[in-house]
């Protein structure tokens, strides 16, 4: 192909950015899928504007898609970009701060006109200044060349311009020596019924690729395949993984799935994904509100289904009262909260970890329930499954916390086959003896009698109930007994979850502690620090309530404990309640953004 030079890189971060209508999400997904197919490890994160279609050309309307791929393990979508694609001045303006020095910036120079510069809030054309900086700038006439490539195609102007993104994708494919075949196939599949459109996209893609090849100044980079585990892979976002985890639990428990939910950003995708899977028998109930979402699910659970409800912070708040009903009736229920920036409506499209205390402590009365958290897009699958397993086997509502960052982010996932998952054992009531709905086993778990079964007719409800019989009871001592048994049942879950693992030395100067969606950034920071010779380890929590049984054992082996969270210290509070014997340092960020690996590293270093 006559390239001037080929350099080998370990890992690269690319950020595609443009107007909401510019198709950046598609572009990014194509690049990451192609890279994954080549055997790279990949992590991606989309960054939408809060508005559906914010005014064209404005900074508020910029839509981004960042991806990080490499031949080593990739844990985050990357802090700073090696390559920025900016489809217009606003995209440049919004993203320049994220470009590494020495990085490459690909611009559609045709968009740098007065109107667009003004919309982006530039007083002067930024290009002259930019060129003085430490960047490798590729000024591509994207719009013009796209039009040219499709001259005579018979397509109207609007349709033609919609393919612009493929021109830049072509450039980037050339830059990193990727084949076009995956994307070409994609268009053939997608536009099977509109071959003209498929052709147009493919033509422009090739045009971009050829354009890049033609420019002498360009270096093509090679990123070799990562050393990754053998197996069958697919790309998956956190929300899709969550949905699939529930489906898997349904199959493994033999219980049909019911999901009662009300749409809310960023949790809506889970409901949407599930509603596509009627083929697996899932009943999705788009409720009139969050309360109906959880209460229909409680009804479905009573009726004997695997029931779940999905939401985000404000929705979890609305479900608070009904969560208490699930606690006192001791019915299995999975509640998924995809956390976002709060309080109130807050920053609905941004990520945050600020619903932890609400999840663990935010209910009237003594209403304990297990809380777990996923930590990567792909392990949302496992933790959704776990939430269902704990709910069913322990007859309790369970909250699964994810967040906007891992929910929308994606990564290649080595598919867990169904054999690798445990069976979920349903504690069905026996029909051979008189039924005592609140009789408990050694795990403090009651049995489940499914309506329709002769001989197990019984009544449950939200009033305190007599131990064993479940009849309404105002007996003072019984209330204390039942309150304790409900707590004991939740505490006993600790016996059925894995112990806390540490990555790094079993004793060290500093333990970086995190939970949930910050895993990728924290582990990357810990690795770097370790490589630089710091005495650092990392412990990440997926089980929040109850905490793993060895938690104190782990914590006590480190001189300093640094709890890093995207909130003002909620997990630190939770640890303090449980283990007041340790002192905790904290590092917090409340900006609606994930950590950067760099800021963790820098902060950690101040502790040495």
């Amino acid at each position: 192909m006559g390239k001037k030079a080929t350099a080998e890189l370990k890992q690269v971060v690319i950020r595609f950015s443009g107007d909401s209508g510019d198709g950046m999400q598609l572009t990014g997904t194509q690049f990451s899928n192609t890279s994954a197919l080549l055997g790279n490890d990949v992590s991606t994160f989309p960054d939408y504007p809060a508005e559906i279609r914010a005014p064209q050309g404005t900074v508020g309307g910029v839509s981004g898609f960042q991806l990080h791929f490499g031949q080593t393990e990739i844990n985050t979508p990357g802090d700073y970009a090696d390559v920025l694609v900016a489809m217009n001045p606003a995209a440049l303006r919004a993203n320049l701060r994220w470009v590494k020095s020495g990085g490459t910036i690909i611009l559609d120079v045709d968009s740098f006109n007065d109107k667009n510069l003004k919309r982006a809030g530039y007083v002067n054309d930024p290009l002259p200044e930019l060129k003085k900086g430490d960047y490798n700038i590729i000024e591509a006439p994207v719009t013009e060349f796209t039009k040219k490539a499709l001259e005579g195609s018979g397509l109207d102007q609007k349709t033609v311009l919609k393919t612009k993104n493929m021109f830049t994708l072509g450039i980037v494919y050339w830059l990193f020596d990727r084949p076009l075949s995956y994307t070409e196939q994609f268009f053939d599949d997608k536009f099977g019924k509109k071959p003209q459109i498929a052709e147009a996209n493919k033509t422009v893609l090739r045009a971009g690729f050829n354009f890049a090849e033609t420019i002498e100044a360009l270096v093509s980079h090679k990123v070799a395949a990562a050393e990754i585990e053998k197996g069958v892979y697919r790309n998956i976002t956190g929300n899709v993984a969550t949905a699939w985890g529930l489906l898997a639990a349904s199959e493994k428990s033999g219980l049909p799935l019911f999901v009662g939910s009300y749409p809310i950003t960023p949790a809506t995708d889970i409901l949407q994904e599930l509603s596509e899977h009627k083929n697996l028998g899932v009943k999705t109930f788009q409720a009139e509100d969050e309360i109906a979402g959880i209460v229909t699910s409680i009804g479905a659970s009573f009726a004997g289904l695997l029931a779940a409800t999905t939401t985000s912070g404000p929705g979890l708040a609305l479900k608070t009262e009904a969560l208490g009903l699930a606690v006192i009736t001791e019915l299995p229920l999975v509640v998924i909260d995809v956390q976002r920036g709060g309080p109130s409506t807050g920053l609905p499209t941004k990520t945050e970890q600020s619903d932890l205390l609400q999840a663990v402590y935010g209910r009237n009365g003594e209403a304990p329930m297990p809380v777990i958290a996923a930590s990567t897009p792909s392990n949302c699958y496992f933790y959704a499954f776990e939430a269902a397993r704990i709910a069913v086997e322990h007859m309790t509502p369970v909250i699964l916390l994810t967040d906007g960052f891992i929910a929308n982010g994606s990564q290649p996932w080595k598919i867990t086959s169904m054999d690798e998952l445990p069976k979920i054992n349903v504690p069905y009531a026996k029909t051979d003896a008189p039924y005592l709905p609140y009789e408990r086993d050694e795990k403090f778990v009651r049995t489940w009698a499914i309506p329709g079964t002769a001989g197990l007719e019984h009544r449950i409800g939200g009033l305190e109930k007599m131990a064993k019989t479940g009849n309404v009871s105002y007996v003072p001592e019984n209330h204390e007994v039942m309150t304790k048994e409900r707590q004991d049942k939740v505490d006993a879950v600790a016996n059925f979850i894995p112990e806390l693992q540490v990555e790094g030395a079993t004793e060290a100067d500093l333990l970086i502690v995190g939970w949930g969606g910050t895993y990728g950034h924290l582990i990357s920071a810990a690795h770097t620090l370790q490589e630089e010779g710091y005495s650092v380890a990392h412990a990440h929590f997926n089980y929040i309530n109850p905490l793993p049984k060895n938690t104190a054992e782990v914590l006590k082996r480190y001189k300093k404990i640094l709890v890093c969270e995207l909130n003002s210290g909620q997990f630190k509070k939770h640890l303090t309640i449980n283990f007041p014997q340790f002192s905790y340092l904290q590092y917090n960020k409340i900006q609606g953004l994930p950590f950067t690996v760099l800021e963790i590293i820098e902060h950690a270093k101040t502790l040495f």
Partner: protein
Amino acid sequence: MSEQNNYTFKDFKSDQEIRWCPGCGDSAILNAVQKAMADLGRKKEEYAVVSGIGCSSRFPYYMATYGFHGIHGRAGALASGVKVANPHLSVWQITGDGDALAIGGNHFIHEIRRNVDLNILLFNNEIYGLTKGQYSPTSKYGKITKTSPFGTVEYPFSVGELTVGAHGKFFARTTDNNLKQMTDVFIEAEHHRGTSVIEILQNCVIFNDGVHDLITDKNTREEHQIYLEHGKPMLFGKDNNKGLVLDGWKLKAVTIGEDGITEADILVHDAHEENPTMHSMLINMKLPDLPVAMGVIRAVKATTYDEAVTKQIEWVKESSKIKNMTDLLFSGNTWEVK
């Protein structure tokens, strides 16, 4: 459905002591439900009785069926969940005027809109009983209660009008002191597929005693009520010689034999008519000019939500190549690292 089980109403009584006030209309309704269920002959284990919170909502405890005493206002959502999860169950939602129309108003109109196959028994005593006597959304304008010592300034809902406004397909009305009528209406409601709303005029002896007396008093009820039956002329009165006719687009009560009126002039009740105009007029009838309508006022057939959900799933299952999780996991874009 109608199997041979030879139940009597006693088979539907649970072992729990009834804790309503002596004389409360709720007890009479309980009897009627137990009688209706026995008559229906369906298996006991197939009934699920679901409620919210209120005096009326204690109901499930007294039934020997599956039962769920939920939280305040959520009876409709709870019942919808149970029914959609398992359409083979016969689900009875027990609710009060506060439970269904105050805090639970939204679930009420949405379950009706969706046409989930439920029997909703709305105990309308025009008061919050359990919290000891505050006005409810059905209390009359000006009513003096614990929270309206100077009279309410709120217009009440009409259960029937709200039901029709939410596109209700079935609405019936009955009274707690008419065991036979209640039983008949409950049986009709169970046979109707879709959301059946039954407003029961219920007497709260403690906080709103006698509020329905003008309508329900046994001495005058033949004059003050009209019992509607599909396909039958709209007749009422002690001698069954009064009837309803249309006067422009309003209803009028007339007496057969007076002013040249014959039985042929009397309107015939068509509960199955889809257009709700006439049903609304019947629902709106008020004393003293017109008798209050009882019985099944509206009963229109339509696909139920639970049935449509089931059918859609069956259809998608058939037409999809993905039959289980393994198929799904390995569908679409995957690649292998060897």
